[in-house]
């Protein structure tokens, strides 16, 4: 392992000690922590929302109008965390590409996408994507035509964003569950196309 191993190991030990002390004093319980960890490890499935919007035009309209309410039709909720959040769906078109960041910290639609990837939380992404989005997107392998307008959305504690990617060409015959398999996390953040 790298030099970081010892460092990580000592932090891991400190985290265990703090957890043990809080459990001993009854401030948190081991069962409660395990339940939260289990939920975090369960893959989030926001792709279902996008696939449904691709095949159901009426749902798509509801999603773009009020995403917070629309996702509840599919069993998701923005009210499951420590406090309610609002969700806004951003529609990619041939003319507009949306990409999401949280410049201040790491606000992210965990209910739909699970815990965020490390790059989303990095200073490099947070600082640069608002200044030079095309350069950042090209580092993800996404080269957009000059004619495509790029819109960068800065998430907050109260408002989270979900990108509705363009449906890939040649998928007209695919069933909804097969469409969902094409949809990537980065596609729903806006750092990839499908």
């Amino acid at each position, binding site marked *: 392992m790298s030099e970081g191993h010892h460092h*990580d190991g000592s*932090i*891991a030990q*400190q*985290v*265990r*000690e*703090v*957890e043990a*002390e*809080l459990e001993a*004093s009854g*401030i*948190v319980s081991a069962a*409660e*922590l395990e339940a*939260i*960890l289990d939920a*975090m*490890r369960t893959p989030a499935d926001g792709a279902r929302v996008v696939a449904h919007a691709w095949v159901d035009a009426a749902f798509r309209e509801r999603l773009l109008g009020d995403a917070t309410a629309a996702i509840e039709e599919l069993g998701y909720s923005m009210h499951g*965390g*420590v*406090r309610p959040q609002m969700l806004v769906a951003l529609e990619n078109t041939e003319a507009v590409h949306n990409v999401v*960041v949280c*410049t*201040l*910290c*790491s606000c992210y639609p965990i209910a739909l996408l*699970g*815990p*965020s*990837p*490390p*790059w989303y*939380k*990095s*200073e*490099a*992404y*947070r*600082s*640069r994507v*608002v*200044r030079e989005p095309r350069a*950042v997107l090209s*580092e*993800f392998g996404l080269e957009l035509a000059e004619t495509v307008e790029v819109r960068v959305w*800065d998430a907050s*504690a109260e408002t989270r964003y979900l990108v509705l990617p363009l449906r890939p060409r040649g998928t007209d015959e695919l069933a909804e569950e097969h469409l969902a398999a094409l949809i990537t996390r980065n596609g729903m953040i806006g750092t990839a196309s499908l």
Partner: protein
Amino acid sequence: MRVNDVGGMEGFGALSVSESDPPFHADWEAHVHALVSALVRRGVFALDEFRDTIERMPPTDYLETSYYERWFRATTTLLRERGLLSADAPADG
């Protein structure tokens, strides 16, 4: 301006984007995330206080620590301020 307000700043270098990009590099990171969720749900501290505690870290400390190290330090800081922790773990202020 606080150190976390990095939007538009220069000098943070290139992105590091790997193929898999799992949310947690190590198990302790997931444990810190779960611990913060539990403490906020129980009302031990509020999410706003938690964010504020991260954002008022000395700028050099903020920039030298990883994302979940910041979370852990802010957690222990808030717990100590409330007299709920004696364990020898890193904290700020």
